[in-house]
């Protein structure tokens, strides 16, 4: 390994530090979007998928538009408030399906995004939303879980209520209500917080099934069966077509082929006419009064970025599935998506 150029590396870091602290506006931009742009995200974590995905997209966008853009992990309620206050376009938001699921589940601080905001383009999918059981669980697969609940057995599922973590649980409950009417109450939600809490519920034998992610839990699935921490995937909520686009190597040491075992048609959760799937999709949200020219400008810039094809590689390397849809298309698509889940949630109430 060659020695890196010390002054250069340090120079780059100092330069980057300057940028991180926020410097003067880039003047070269000639579109309607000008000055410093702050992209707030609906998560407070800088270690999570929302931050990671937003960084990839915003970095590419900043370069394309020659603007100074920064991602701030302010959390959902703050992010919505910041967005409400700024119709100039200097505050944009990136979030995922939680933004409307929170509304559907009646969580405080969430409004109907389709009425209150302008929906921007979708940029990527995180295909990792998963459900896991302990490695020594009596349930071999999700069908056995559904059958057991149908037979009157109580199955406890650790989730974080009010959003992405709950929607799979709701769908499962709905499927049980369809296949084994009247038995759905045997599927019990254990309300927890972070992924750590959900894992802990499994270790403590306080839950039989937990919501997790491929990214956070893959290593746990490779532990030996006699390890208290060992887990097994039983269901990935993503569409088969989404996982098929993942890199062939999959994630960690779990290949794409192995991951495909946990999606349709191998694992199905019925909604009656069709099967339930859930892709966690990231998209932009704009202030309703923002200049429509900015909407077009970002659509156009992202269109070019995706046409160049580099960003897809970066996203796939980080286990995201590229999924660019311009604003109009995205709004219609997401509104349809919401109405499907609205049906599921109403069905089990």
């Amino acid at each position, binding site marked *: 390994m060659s020695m890196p150029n010390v002054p250069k590396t340090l120079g780059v870091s100092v330069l980057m530090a300057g940028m991180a602290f926020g410097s003067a506006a880039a003047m070269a931009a000639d579109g309607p979007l000008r000055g410093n742009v702050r992209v707030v995200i609906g998560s407070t974590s800088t*270690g999570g998928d929302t931050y990671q995905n937003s960084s990839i997209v915003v970095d590419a966008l900043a370069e394309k538009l020659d603007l100074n853009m920064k991602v701030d992990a302010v959390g959902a309620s703050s992010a919505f408030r910041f967005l409400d206050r700024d119709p100039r376009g200097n505050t944009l938001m990136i979030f995922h399906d939680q933004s409307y699921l929170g509304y559907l589940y009646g969580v405080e601080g969430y409004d109907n995004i389709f009425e209150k905001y302008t929906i921007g383009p979708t940029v990527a999918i995180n295909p990792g939303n998963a459900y896991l059981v302990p490695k020594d669980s009596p349930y071999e697969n999700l069908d056995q879980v559904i059958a057991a609940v149908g037979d009157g057995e109580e199955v406890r599922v650790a989730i974080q209520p009010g959003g992405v973590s709950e929607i799979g649980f709701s769908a499962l409950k709905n499927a049980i209500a369809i296949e084994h009417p009247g038995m759905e109450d045997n599927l019990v939600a254990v309300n927890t917080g972070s992924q750590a809490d959900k894992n802990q519920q499994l270790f403590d034998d306080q839950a039989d099934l937990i919501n997790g992610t491929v990214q956070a839990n893959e290593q746990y699935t490779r532990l030996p069966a006699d390890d208290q921490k060992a887990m097994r995937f039983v269901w990935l909520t993503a569409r088969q077509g989404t996982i098929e686009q993942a890199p062939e190597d999959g994630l960690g040491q779990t290949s794409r082929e192995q991951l495909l075992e946990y999606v349709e048609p191998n694992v199905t959760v019925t909604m009656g006419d069709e099967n339930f799937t859930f892709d966690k999709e990231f998209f932009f949200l704009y202030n309703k009064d923002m200049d429509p020219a900015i909407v077009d400008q970002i659509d156009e810039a992202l269109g070019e970025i995706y046409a160049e094809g580099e960003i897809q590689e970066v996203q796939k390397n980080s286990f995201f599935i590229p999924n660019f849809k311009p604003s109009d298309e995205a709004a219609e698509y997401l509104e349809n998506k919401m109405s499907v889940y609205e049906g599921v949630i109403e069905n089990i109430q």
Partner: protein
Amino acid sequence: MLDILSLLDITFFLLAALGALVGIIFGAIPGMTATMAVAVCLPLTYALGLHHGLALLLGLYVGGISGGMVPAVLLNIPGTPSSITTTFDGYPMAQRGEGERALRVCVVASVVGGLVSAAILFLFAPLLAEFSIKFSYVEKFLIILLALTVIASMSRNMLVGIFSGVLGIWLSLIGTYSISDGGNGKTRLMFDFLEPYLFEGFSLLPVLIGIFGIATILLEAEQGVKSGLSGKEIKIGKGGGFSFGIFRGRLTNLVRSSFIGTFVGMLPGVGGSAASVLAYTQEKNLSRDSSEMGKGAPQGLIASESANNALTGGALIPLLSLGIPGDSTTAVLIGAFTLQGIQVGPLFIPENADTWYVMMTALVFANGVMFFLMFYAIKHIAKVVLVPKYILYPIIVMMCVVGAYAINYGIMFDVWTLLIFGVLGYLIQKVGLEVAPLIIGFILGGQAEVYFVKSLESFGGYSIFFTKSPIAVVLWALIAASVTFSVVMGLKSHAKRRLETSQ
């Protein structure tokens, strides 16, 4: 092994040192924290690559936690939440003109804490991770409860102290029982019109710097502007009075506090401030003579600072062997891995041996740099108190305001929180309530609630708190011992006072 040596180039060490320096500055500015320092520099890891990026971030982490001692000792403002117990003895020492001596004690304690925890991390990480998952909601609640018992032993008047502590807990419950903790997300303890501001409750840092910093300044302001220097009696240089002899007979304290810090660090979801509070409590309970603690005793500084630096190694244990951050700073640090597409989880260490060794090197090196930077710079840093107060205090107020505004990325209500708690801190001291128990109640109250409610939800009845596990029983024994000790000490000092007045 050679592979690893090739990763450790000059840039690596320069970055770790730079990180430690910048971290110290962040930690020393009231309102800026280690977490902020790491968050601000996180995007740099793209340009630097994983190993160089980690060197910088770990330097920032170690420096940021250590830097908090400076304003805690000199100005009575905890630079980071985990240095609040440092103010209890540090500021009285600084007022006696022993600021430099106090800081040197802190620096030595910090480096010992940091290195002990690094050693524990290196040798026992997977084993301890295994142990940490034995702590369910019940045990975590009991740990918090144990830390809360310090309220009884540290108050001047136990009843007033406990009342102040309960008040602090009450203040911490304002807002929502957050849905991200599995709560119902409904607001409480407020009027409807306050909802937009208090939805997430009062944020910790503005409360902390308000109640310590602003209140101290208000109290000083009441006495009027004096043209004299703020620290006439200050002993600097040879007169500083520091020698390593201070640590004689304090080794048990040093080692115990380092272990406590590491241990609390490795429990995910038990905040960093609990570490120094718990170490402080234990020193108070277990040392032969703790009567001077709270009035300017080096042993309090040793407990507080070795514990809060030991947090660094401790918090990395669950991060690197479970993929779960142990405190708020490591929660940001995890971003450095995800941004590079590296999974952290139970197999991280065996599968990324290079990165693991590189991190250990950075951690130990950053501790060394922190020690040399601070130990030799203290002479100059301690001179801050020589700046006339009418110049120093406005600058502090300004920094507090900027810090409060910046902590949640620009929320004006945080600045109001700073003011509200500044005035409140001033008033409660005027009416005779105690600040330290109040703030400890405020810091630990929220967690106590979540773990208490979750324990009941998960396990059903109250008896589980006693029967959950042998660990729970041990914790109860410690709680009982701590409470008994406080009561006995309280009665003793009461009798002593009565004896003095009757004479």
